[in-house]
């Protein structure tokens, strides 16, 4: 599918991540200066020049697991630590929020406005750092340069690629359930009223033309929806009214972060299938991760500043419970590498896996995912 999808996917998921973290930092009463440092560190890693250079290269999308590893890394770019259950919950919230935004996007091109909404909010999070603001503006400029000239057909391909990435993901999010934009089966509500997308006429009119191209007759039919005309198009400029609300911060003090961690049973079959299927591409995914994460500048928490742990749940007990009760098909824990029939390739993979084992850190409760991250540290 479209090789122009990754930057949009990464920036929007990153934006959602920052919304959730910002809300949880407040809820957990983390001192203001520490919270500011965390957000500044993560944002400056996200918009690091070397990293965005890799990001904007035309490339295919990678698996949900591979991408999850990138965010795991990003969330730990500062003095804050998240354990597995909180990281899982964070990733669930991010992915479901952006899936909703892509699905509800009025026109395929509007996924760019959603991205700009995220960038606008991210700039609002940056405190006292013109350098980081400049980095975000630079990314904005790159987005405009690359996506500003794409045709409607190319945007449709990008949208289809994003939707295929999010296909079969039906985690219920309580904020969405309360707002009645998500049904109890995990599917989103698609409204059949309100403004039509910019450039589309309210359905219900049939125009008849003669051979000369003149309109000679106009008829009406009952469409069944209850639409009104769009009043204005959102601005694609650096500063402007995006009109579209998708992609803005939906969390606030009165709307805390909450999730129900459940997938509908019907989808577990297809998910499980995806997990069991041998993945001979793991090595190429690793190369991708190495390239992408290699561009990230990670600040070690060993500096003078003491670190802290952020909990996405109200209490530690809840977090523990979530870790134990998480449905298996929703597990992202391990980037699995499975040997293939191909002898040469499997030897190569075995060698890579050995390299992982060598980097094992005894002080950490290591899983293969951690090994990979440890390896990335050395890049």
């Amino acid at each position, binding site marked *: *599918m479209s090789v122009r999808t990754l930057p949009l996917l990464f920036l929007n998921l990153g934006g959602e991540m920052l919304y959730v973290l910002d809300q949880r930092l407040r809820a957990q009463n983390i001192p203001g200066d520490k919270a500011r440092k965390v957000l500044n560190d993560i944002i400056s890693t996200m918009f690091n020049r070397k990293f965005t250079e890799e990001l904007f290269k035309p490339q295919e999308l990678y698996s949900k697991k591979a991408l999850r590893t990138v965010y795991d890394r990003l969330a730990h770019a500062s003095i804050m630590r998240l354990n597995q259950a909180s990281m899982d919950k964070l990733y669930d919230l991010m992915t479901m929020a952006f899936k909703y935004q892509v699905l509800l996007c009025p026109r395929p091109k509007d996924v760019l406005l959603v991205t700009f909404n995220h960038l606008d909010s991210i700039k609002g999070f940056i405190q006292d750092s013109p350098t980081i603001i400049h980095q975000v503006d630079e990314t904005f400029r790159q987005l405009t340069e690359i996506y500003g000239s794409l*045709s*409607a057909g190319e945007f449709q391909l990008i949208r289809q690629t994003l939707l295929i990435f999010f*296909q079969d993901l039906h985690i219920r999010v309580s904020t969405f359930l309360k707002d009645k934009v998500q049904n109890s089966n995990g599917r989103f509500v698609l409204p059949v009223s309100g403004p039509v997308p910019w450039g589309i006429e309210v*359905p219900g009119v049939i*125009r008849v033309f003669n*051979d000369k*191209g003149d309109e000679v007759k106009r008829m009406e*039919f009952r469409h069944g929806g209850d*639409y009104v005309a769009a009043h204005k198009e959102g601005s694609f400029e650096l500063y402007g009214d995006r009109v579209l609300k998708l992609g803005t911060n939906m969390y606030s003090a009165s709307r805390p972060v909450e999730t129900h961690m459940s997938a509908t049973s019907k989808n577990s079959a297809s998910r499980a299938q995806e997990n069991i299927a041998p993945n001979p591409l793991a090595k190429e995914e690793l190369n991708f991760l190495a390239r992408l994460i290699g561009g990230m500048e990670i600040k070690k928490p060993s500096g003078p500043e003491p670190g802290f742990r952020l909990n996405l749940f109200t209490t530690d007990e809840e977090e523990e419970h979530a870790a134990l009760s998480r449905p298996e098909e929703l597990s992202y824990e391990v980037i699995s590498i499975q040997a293939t029939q191909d002898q040469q390739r499997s030897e190569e993979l075995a060698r890579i896996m050995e390299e992982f084992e060598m980097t094992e850190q005894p002080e950490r409760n290591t899983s293969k995912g951690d090994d990979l991250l440890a390896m990335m540290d050395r890049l």
Partner: protein
Amino acid sequence: MFRRERSIPLRGSAAALSNNLSVLQLPARDLTHFGVVHGPSAQLLSAAPEGVPLAQRQLHVKEGAGVSPPLITQVHWCVLPFRVLLVLTSHRGIQMYESDGSVMVYWHALDSGDASSVQAMFARGIAASVHFICVGTWSGRILVFDIPAKGPNIVLNEELAGHQTPITDIATERAQGQDGVADMVTADDSGVLCVWRSGPEFTLLTRIAGFGVPCPSVQLWQGIVAAGYGNGQVRLYDAGTGALHIQISAHARTISALDLAPEVGKLLSAAEDTFVHIWKLNRNPESGSIEVEHCHGECISDTQVCGARFCDPGGSSFAVTGYDLAEILRFGSV
């Protein structure tokens, strides 16, 4: 009036692609075949009239070199006068199977030679005309394959140029022995339509200009081109002259599929706005002008419709697929 009938469960949900449902009617055997793309795989299944699934099969893309498993873009049954083949298009190439999907009889790899790195390469848009199968590509070219009465000896006969942007869909109509009559129409991502006359060498008859909006689905019936666009419009053109006769503001989102019931001239339009509409087309015998009438509208709640087809030539039943939905919804007239 149409009523919802028993739906057919799928093993995987339908991917967000336009024209993501193919239906092969086998009235002699009282069976209907359905084909739906899931993403890296496609599912074929046959069902009895009550919607009871009888047999199913999964198809994959032949070659898997690359970073992620290659995605399928479309599956479609091509009914030739002497043979039925199932054609599968993907980001790697074109696969042709015997109609039940059991044996692959032909494989055509896409040539990346002229693809720049910023463009995704794929085949999309499939239709049969006489003894040819035509398949569209990302580059805008249309590959014309000559199909023998039996066996795998399929040859690439011709490459048609006429489009500058990726092909979205191809429609054909069996010409009733009239020379020079248009019998194929092709559509692309910029909304340009090309009207062709098939033959040992295909002839471009008319080019209908686009207006910057993709045309995901197109149909051809008795010299009428029906085109569904990204802005929710359905436009009806005269295939011979390319003149616009009717413009319908039919949907609030992009149209994802059009289909025709040839016996009665019914047109079905399905869109991402969750609606399916059925229209009746007519060619006025005196003035020759094209007429249209709205027959039925159906809301498929909370479903971004990605495929829809009539299930009989009289247009009295239809089936619908939706993004992320692991079933085929069926509707029958009451």
